[in-house]
């Protein structure tokens, strides 16, 4: 009975986000990330895994991706800058390896088209909204109401005011 209660209490403590002392066998292993670890992760996230569909080297579990991450690490340790490492992969795999295309030539369309479409949309909205507003205003104040009182209606003005 007692051990069962103790473990139930420990479980409750863990579920409530209790201290590690409540679950001694689950001591978290804290791995200190070095500067190179961080750089490898950053570069691997920007490169495409060649044997996957739309995965980065960082996210891919494939063996080739693992080996390519090792290549990134080796080159960084040799003193290459992140840009030089990326240039190496572009030289062997082509621009395709970059998950984010460089803003040059035809690629510019990827960056400019959305901006152009958004601006076009705003302009269109503005023009259409103005037309709608004009129509509503015209409907609310028909020319007659703004003009001279209609002499034909004059006899009835008193009636409606009553």
């Amino acid at each position, binding site marked *: 009975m007692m051990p069962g209660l103790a473990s139930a209490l420990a479980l409750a403590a863990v579920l409530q986000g209790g201290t590690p002392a409540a679950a001694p066998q689950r001591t978290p292993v804290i791995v200190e990330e070095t500067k190179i670890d961080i750089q490898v992760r950053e570069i691997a996230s920007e490169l495409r895994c*060649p044997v996957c569909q739309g995965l980065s080297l960082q996210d891919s579990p494939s063996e*080739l991706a693992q*080996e390519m991450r090792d*290549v990134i690490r080796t080159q960084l340790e040799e003193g290459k800058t992140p840009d030089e490492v990326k240039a190496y992969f572009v030289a*062997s*795999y*082509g621009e*395709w390896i970059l998950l984010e295309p460089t803003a040059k030539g035809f690629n510019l369309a990827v960056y400019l088209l959305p901006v152009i479409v958004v601006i076009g949309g705003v302009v269109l909205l503005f023009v259409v909204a103005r037309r709608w507003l004009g129509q509503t205003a015209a409907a609310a104040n028909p020319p007659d109401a703004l003009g001279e009182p209609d002499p034909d209606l004059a006899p009835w003005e008193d009636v409606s005011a009553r």
Partner: protein
Amino acid sequence: MNWRRSMLGLVVGLPLVALLGFGLTRDPARIPSPLPGKPAPDFSLPVMDGEGQVTLAALRGQVVVLNFWASWCLECRYEHRDLSRSAEAYEGKGVHFFGVLYNDTAENGRRWIEEMGGQSYPTLLDGGSRVAINYGLYGVPETFIIDQTGTVVHKQIGPITADRLAEMIDPLLAGEGRP
């Protein structure tokens, strides 16, 4: 519909349709390699069944055919006979064929060669796939044809045939001695 509205539709719609139509003509799986026309990345790899290393730089002045393969690769079976026969046909003519075992163990590689009835050229071992990555390999089989100056002439993705090999190699041999 008034003419201004139809003009606007044309101005916005036509380029969009043209862009999407252009996209349809392109196969996203065919990725052009930047290597043809560039110097072939050098390598020095151990021979799977044999002594010593093969260094690409030492083969300057010769045509090199580099075929990446693996025992687990189905398409490699289709091209194996053509490659082996071509290697025999070009023996002593200044053409060197090499297989590079990709992502595989030497043991599996040997068993595969035995099963396929032999290989007329040596296979090299690329532990860690460093050479494969240098050559921008996507998968196997891929075949690189390197001319006498050490420049990549052609990259074949997928199985290669004897005809295709001859088509690429013969002009290189004919042009030998050119500056």
